[in-house]
């Protein structure tokens, strides 16, 4: 694991997202109404739409391009759609958001204590 300090929690709007420039493309960092955070590759599994621009509701985000609804925890499409985008380990300590990008370059099994990474992608 290699945790990167990203930003204070308050820099992400509740029910909103910010974009973090990752080594292999943008990562969307989400904040729910109850202040939990999630990180997904900023690409909808459908047509690559930027999930960071979607509407966040519950533990889900709706892609702005074609309304696929993606689970923030697993990165998987919900409902009748199927597809998955990479989820990154992320955590908040003392109001600071930390992101682990090691999975962005390598497909490591990751720290089991971190947010589970449910799906992988090549590269």
């Amino acid at each position, binding site marked *: 694991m*290699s*945790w*990167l*300090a*990203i*930003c*204070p929690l308050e*820099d*992400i*709007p*509740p*029910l*909103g997202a*910010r*974009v*973090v*420039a*990752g080594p292999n493309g*943008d990562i969307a*960092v989400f904040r729910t*109404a*109850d202040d939990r955070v999630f990180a997904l590759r900023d690409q909808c599994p459908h*047509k690559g*739409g*930027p999930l960071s*621009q*979607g*509407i*966040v*509701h*519950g533990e*889900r985000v*709706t892609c*702005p*391009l*074609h*309304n696929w*609804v993606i689970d923030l925890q697993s990165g998987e499409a919900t*409902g*009748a*759609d199927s597809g998955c985008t990479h989820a990154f380990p992320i955590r908040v300590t003392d109001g*600071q958001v930390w*992101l682990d*990008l090691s999975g962005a370059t390598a497909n490591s099994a990751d720290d089991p204590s971190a947010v589970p990474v449910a799906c992988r992608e090549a590269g």
Partner: protein
Amino acid sequence: MDTANDKPRLVLIGNGMAGMRTVEELLKLKPDMYDITVFGAEPWGNYNRIMLSPVLASEKTVDEIMLNDDAWYAERGITLHKGKRIERIDRVNRRVIAEDGTEAPYDRLLLATGSDPVMIPVPGHELEGVVAFRDIHDVDAMLAASRAHRHAVVIGGGLLGLEAANGLMRQGMEVTVVHLMDHLMERQLDAEAAGMLRGSLEQRGMRFRMAHQTETILGEDRVTGVRFTDGSEVDADLVVMAVGIRPNTALAESAGLHCERGVVVNDTMQTYDPSIYAVGECVQHRGATYGLVAPLWEQAKVCANHLAEYGIGRYEGSMTSTKLKVTGIDLFSAGDFTGDETTEDLVFKDAARGVYKRLVLKDNRIQGAVLYGDTLDGSWYFQLMRDATPVADIRENLLFGQAHIGDSGHGDEASRVAAMPDEAEICGCNGVCKGEIVQAISEHKLFTLEDVRAHTKASNSCGSCTGLVESVLATTLGGDYSDAPAKKPVCACTDHSHDEVRAAISRDGLKTMDAVFEALDWKTPNGCHVCRPALNYYLLAAWPKDYQDDAQSRFINERAHGNIQKDGTYSVVPRIWGGVTTPAELRAIAEVAERYQVPTVKFTGGQRIDLLGVKKPDLPAMWRDLGAAGFVSGHAYGKALRTVKTCVGSEWCRFGTQDSTGLGIQLERMTWGSWTPHKFKMAVSGCPRNCAEATIKDLGVVCVDSGYELHVGGNGGVKVRATDFLCKVETETEVLEYAGAFMQFYREDARYLERTAPWIERVGLTRVKERLVDDAENRAALYARFLESQEVAQVDPWAERAAGHAAHEFIPITPVDAAPRQGVSA
């Protein structure tokens, strides 16, 4: 039967469509709430009973109509007892006992015992070869008979009887239909349509004995014939009784539950015993019993809601429509078509084409409809009927169908849906072909438009093919398909409709989204992408000065004040008042386009310039530069006032009668920045040549020598619709007042995402005229409310963001290398 956990126990008696639909709805709401046990008298899983006719006609197999197999129950932890008939309900000890002694205790009991076919007790009705048409067992018996025998008699010329007769004929039998009345399907058809139906069936070889009453079924062991009261006889090796169904109340009655014709339930589907609910054909609700599938769906939804202890749904009865499931015969009937001195008839008949349509109107609304031969508009008439839409304004074209009410887009295609090949494209947005939709419907057992949208994406984008998809659904599912429930909730987060939510916001003074969620028992903690933008709009429209606009509840375009493109870049459209610009402004736009390396510069249809492919972080700086040249946001991205298109008018044009350009600019200055239920476009033409195309705008002004004609409700997009003429006024001041008042009425009355065209079709032009033209006081009040809301709306969002507002929206985070907290570097 002890349960391993403390969950309350739900027992369902009746493994049919209504009961299992209730269970499925319940699982969607609270998957783990109950320990569920299901008893079914039939020895198989849950199947689609409405598809028995196609099975009989060999158009489908039994496997194809199975809804849930054993694995489905097992996966959900549901205990299924197949082939076990419940003999007794012990209400004191809350348990049910099956014939074979199996017992199950319950905390909540759901009765869905369905109905039994009525067997006329004439002599001989118990002979071998006399069957009903009710379940798979009956269908098997009929199929077996068709292989060994030749003559079939179907007693009953109603929906079910004719479907049975058709199926048997398809199996090669000679079929005679016996009917007590002198015309077929008398509960659904008038004499005219019934006559055409009979003619068509006779052409196919079906025989009829109308106004005949059965006296005796003849035969020793097996049936050999039928004798009628007039003494005549007909040969028969098979007799199918299809004279009606009767709610199966025997079990409920023996348990002491109050029953009349059916098991009596209240609006929450509860019987007289509060722990026992009932749904489906066995119930009687507000005096009515139902034998069609659509009402069962509505009942199931309400019942599940109460079993899940949400306690908010109410079943208020159903208006039903009927279609006949006989291939090649199109027949639709809904409502009350008997007619009397208070009703009017609209009739269309083209005997050569085999088309007959009759609408019965009462108080300017459709009360009943009978369609034969061309049923394409059945669901539209049904919708008008259920919405009680006034039809005076569309009356002259009503019989010709929805395609003739201003729609020149898709009407013609839809009539060919049934004949379309599988590879025909239905949804042009998402490239979905008919075959894919049909396959998804059978494979995933889909019943509703929403299901089809979720699985295939057909009609999930622009929605213009919704009618086509509904037709495919109807032809694939067969006759009992009914499109949407009478009351359509905003989304899955609530059971309330748009109108109910809106009414509650004003009535109860709800001024925040959380207040709405709480007051209206929202099922999700913070809504979804469907309801939140709608609520945000309703709150904003209701309390323009009190409500704090919620950026996170706006679609990205309205949050970022640009249109998101397929690659995640944005487009920038500065406002160009009335489409009039200057060399200096053009130069400024050109410089901005070069400075920010805009890949594409394009003229829009609304007389403006679109800068496409802008990277999001560049937006605020671009807006700052455009602002410096005097530009404000064009709101090309919003459910808001878009453009006011103009022609050059009297200033230059040799035909111009008024200053259309100047008036257009005044209108745009007055209305820019206002949020509306959907986008709102205007145009002003300087003469009746109408070069600004004002008659396909939400509000169009056509200048004439003596003043200004105002036109409303036009649309040039998904579904072309020419405007309706609202009124004529004499001065520019009046144009502004009417325009502001019209926009405000639209803002207050239409549902979110409803353009003016469908809104006016729904509420009727008469209503708009009453409020706007006939009632000067109301018009002035609407106009005043519009101007009041504009006081706070006319703030340029681009200037605000160029000055640093909502910077987090535009600036990405750059992570810091494994360093401890350093905050954001932006």
